[in-house]
């Protein structure tokens, strides 16, 4: 059973440390624009919602990739982008109905959450329980996954 990155908006204070650490892990710099974890603030910061790729079963990004640049890491279940293989065509960025894979003009390839190979830096950085890395069958994960399938509008198992 793979672990999942579970995001709990109620516990998020909007400190953005997860974004800082994510960008550091991704590009070696504290630059929130390079983070693949996003905190969206509502009502002037009264509510903060963390979001990133849920490593959904549908994996629209992986299915649509024309050069097989996105593959599953068997150890974590994460869908990972190979920067060597990706040509930068961006078709995954419109196919993902969650907007969770994005093009980085500086690198010329797409970027997304890869669970940091099994030790997500965002979780380590989170000072509350807003981000946790836990067994997939723990509370809420199934709900998120159902939501993923539903949101994409395809019957389960087709994409």
């Amino acid at each position: 059973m793979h672990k999942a990155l579970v995001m709990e908006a109620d516990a998020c204070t909007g400190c953005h440390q997860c974004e800082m650490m994510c960008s550091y892990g991704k590009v070696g710099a504290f630059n929130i624009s390079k983070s693949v974890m996003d905190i969206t603030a509502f009502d002037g910061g009264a509510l903060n919602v963390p979001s990133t790729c849920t490593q959904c079963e549908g994996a629209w990004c992986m299915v649509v990739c024309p050069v097989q640049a996105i593959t599953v890491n068997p150890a974590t279940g994460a869908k990972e982008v190979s920067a060597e293989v990706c040509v930068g065509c961006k078709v995954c960025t419109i196919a993902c109905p969650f907007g969770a894979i994005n093009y980085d003009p500086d690198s010329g390839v797409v970027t997304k959450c890869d669970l940091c190979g099994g030790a997500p830096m965002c979780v380590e950085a989170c000072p509350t329980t807003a981000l946790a890395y836990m067994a997939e069958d723990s509370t809420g994960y199934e709900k998120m996954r159902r939501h993923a399938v539903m949101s994409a509008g395809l019957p389960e198992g087709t994409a």
Partner: protein
Amino acid sequence: MHYVIAGAGPAAVAAAEHLKELDPSAKVTMIGAQQQPPYSRMAIPYYLTGKVKEEGTYLRRAANHYEEKGIEFVHGEVVSLDGPGHTVSLADGQTIGYDKLLLATGAEPIIPPVPGMDDPRVQQCWHLEDAERIIELAKPGARAVQVGAGFIGCIILESWVLREVNLTVVEMGPRMVPRMLGEKAGGLLQKWCESKGVTVHTNTRVQSIESTPEELKVVLENGETCAADVVIVSTGVKPRIAYLDGSGITVDQGIVVDQHMQTSVADVYAAGDCAQGLDFSTGETAVHAVQPTATEHGRVAAANMVGNNSLPYKGSLNMNILDTLGLVTCSFGAWEGVEGGDSGEMFNEGNYQYINLQFKDDVLVGANSVGYHEHLGVLRGLIETQVPLGAWKERLKKNPVQLADAYVGVNQSELKVS
């Protein structure tokens, strides 16, 4: 059970793999006409710029990928189909029998009926071989005229500019990429290309191409003449379906399929660029010759071939993303708007940024954008889920840039883990 797939592009490969996943003991045969292993036309522009080598355009990385998946690959071109007899014939005279057949024969370039198109310095950009020829012709300082500023035309512009070719683009439509971008978005793209040194003519056709041993003269309907060392023709593509004449299969713009991707002939399905399937936005059928539709078609067709038409398809959302010399443009769904709908717009001409959102009631139905590359996928999510935007609609009309916030906002109550 023997599944046969005519074609070896993205729809064919997606279908072949899904057929083996769903029915591992079945025999799956994929018939491809190209010399190379199955490759992606989406990757050819990056082959032209030198970002990847030929292998970098292949749909699958491992040399023995198809063997390993148990997919038989036959090299050949399907030239006819006998529906009642359940066979296809290949150009080399071979006949292959099937239990269920998928037609995924893709598209082919439209060649405009212009005198002079047969000169060897006039080049299509469709197959890998065309790309190799273009690389030879596009020498630094060469004068190139590109006929057509559609999707393919725009995506290969970068390779000309990188090769230091003097480029003139001729588009018969009123703007660049007229079938994907509205007036403001297309205009912004043209201005961007011109700022990069590309000459752009719109609203005019090529009348003739006159050739002398030294050069080509491209004569335009607007009276202008462009001297050229090379002419690239990228005037769009059409479904490759001529081989179906006399087969009894209903064709219109493409091969007409129902919600199960089945054609008018039993046990024959179609997918990808050659198929005219359900359009999510209109409920009618349309040809959506884009990569996301091809892979979805392939997988849905495979599921129905194995599951006896048990998986109805909601239809494909027409969408496209294009990077022209570093300016990213995209379109989704009913970007031209729908009857009784309304829209919101943000236009920052100096920054080459534009977003246009189209609504029907409080549901997003289409979008165009220029100069944005972050979280574009939420446009698909919002359109396909038809989620009511509620208060977010007015906020988006005022400031369309808040798209990703709106997406999280309308979904956050469901996403909340409690």
